[in-house]
């Protein structure tokens, strides 16, 4: 079952008067349940691919299918709804809502859905709080947490809606290596438990080792696609 399909995707944009070709015809197919790393140096196009899959950017050429739907023709409201229902995001800088505590940050995407009772929400949130090991930090605000704890909150927030795909843009870039490894371990454990598709970008060789599949990008083109046994 295909979770994502990129077909001959090109992306270019203008930086002042200079045209930048961020992607030069990328075709990728990602199956549901994969734990996949997109690897490459800075400026290779990793984030651009994640942005396209995350429906927060559109390709200049080519097609992007998410769960079989071509997303290019969806309007802003439809894309927002699509992101809410199908995708989870983990950001390099954690991007937690500073005025909400741990519980409230994790609960936030469920509140946007408006379809669950308070009790149902609490049950789901507490499940993922346990998964990421933050049960003793529920009332803490983001500024009272370490970097690793914040990223675990972000992981729980990304997972709480049971998305089809979780996109993580360099999730360990702002963490020390030991914490980074632990975060990837958490993501991988959830991938195994929940069968959620994880796509993360990284240029950290050690993090790449945890991925079951690594797609290498350089200068906007796929230079390698390695599946580990």
């Amino acid at each position: 079952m295909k979770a994502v399909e990129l077909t001959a995707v090109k992306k270019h944009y203008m930086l002042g008067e200079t045209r930048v070709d961020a992607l030069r015809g990328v075709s990728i197919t990602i199956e549901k349940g994969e734990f996949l790393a997109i690897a490459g140096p800075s400026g290779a196009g990793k984030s651009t691919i994640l942005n396209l899959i995350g429906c927060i950017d559109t390709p200049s050429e080519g097609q992007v299918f998410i769960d079989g739907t071509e997303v290019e023709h969806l309007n802003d409201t439809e894309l927002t709804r699509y992101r809410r229902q199908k995708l989870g995001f983990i950001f390099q800088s954690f991007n937690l809502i500073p005025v909400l505590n741990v519980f409230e940050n994790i609960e936030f995407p469920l509140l946007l859905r408006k379809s669950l009772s308070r009790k149902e929400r609490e049950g789901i949130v507490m499940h993922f709080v346990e998964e990421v090991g933050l049960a003793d930090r529920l009332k803490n605000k983001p500024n009272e947490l370490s970097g690793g704890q914040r990223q675990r909150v972000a992981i729980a927030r990304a997972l709480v809606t049971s998305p089809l795909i979780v996109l993580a843009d360099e999730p360990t870039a702002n963490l020390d290596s030991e914490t980074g490894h632990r975060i990837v371990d958490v993501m991988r454990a959830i991938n195994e438990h929940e069968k959620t598709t994880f796509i993360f970008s990284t240029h950290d060789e050690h993090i790449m080792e945890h991925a079951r599949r690594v797609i290498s990008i350089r200068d906007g083109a796929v230079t390698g696609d390695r599946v580990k046994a």
Partner: protein
Amino acid sequence: MVTLKIALRSLLRRKSRAATIGVLVAFGTILLVFGQTFTRSAGDASRDSIINNFTGDLILYSERSKEKPSPFAFNTPLPNIQNAERVRSFLAGLPEVSAVVPFTQNYAIIQAQKDGKPVELPIIFYAVEPTTYRQIFRNAEITTGSFFGVEAGGAARSGILISEFQNTEYQKNYGVTLAVGQPLTVLGLTEGGSVNAYRSELLGIFKPRYFKNVFNYINFIDIDTYASLYNFTGVAADSLPDNLTSGLEAAAGNEDAIFGLAEDESFGRLDVSTLRSETLSGFTMIAVLLKDHEQVDQVIAQVEAAGLGVKGARWDQASGFFARIASALQAFIILATGLIFLIVAFIFMNTLIINIIERTSEIGTMRAIGGEKSFIRAIFLSETLLLNIPVSLAAMAVSLVAILAIGARGLPLPDSISQFLIGGGPLTMRLFLAPFVEALVIVAGVSVIATIYPIRVATGITPLRAMGGRE
């Protein structure tokens, strides 16, 4: 609920900015509520001073007059009301009317003695029926003598009253100080062009209680002295022979026809012993007080429809500029408040934009994980209203306490301002609902308007910003 939670906590996170905006909103609200209450109270006080001391709710005047009556200004005297007694009888039958005060305004010369030589002093005056006038209008505070002797309960005496200020002016400009009991000769220019002289006496000296800046210059003469001075005496119509009455009616307005009557033998000789003299009032205005101020237009319409030869002017038309002072002040307060709120809106808008720029990542994140534009809009609108409405309500409460505290004993004003604005004395603050409602609506309106542009900026932030990526 999460919208309110985020909005409230975001406000608390930026306390100093919220406090700055809050202080401005509170100041604007207090200015609006207190200012509007002040001007409305001043308007009411001014109206009461004018109605209860000078004009009544309305003034009736001759329909031949081309000008409105102006007891606050001295222009050419209005034409006499020819049927003053009929008008008074008609008014007496109207249930809406509580009192009727006829008077006139004119000017004359009074002759006094200085070092054995006559000195001529100009005088502007109201000619009044002393008893009626004194019962209704209490503007003159007698300092020496009496108000035509009516305080003693006896019949009114004929004479003159002058203001203290007027007497001081006489001393300053003519070297003459008048004293109560002093005989005076009043000289008046009649409509026919002759000068009449009438012996009179100074009966009292007074200070005006209200609108001193106008009424320091106005004095009083009793209506009998006035009628004699200006020849308001004639032949009673019902004592004329019928054929002469019908002949005069037929010749009305035609001078040749009137003189022709004298040559008409059929009229025979007129027996003057059968004629009876009649004193005409000389009243040019009749102030009418009503039981209910709101009925003024209705009463004017009734009087004008009765064919009495008079028409009516509302108190605010008759008092001209003075009735508009409170309105002008109210307009000024509205303008000043508008300016304050414009500044508040501008500062508020800029503060919100700074907040939004600082929260770009937060907004982008919300958009990325499924927050629609309407959700972002709701957060910023909630922040605005959560700050401004409670602050505004608190400021209203402060204003309310201040109004109630002042209201009981009145707000003391400098005499010159008080005289000009409300006629004099401390301003009794009255409680009105409208300024509170207006303030709430204005604060909510300004808040929403000031948020429109920042919200456009906020909803323009794409989820791509949250990824720290290019746009």
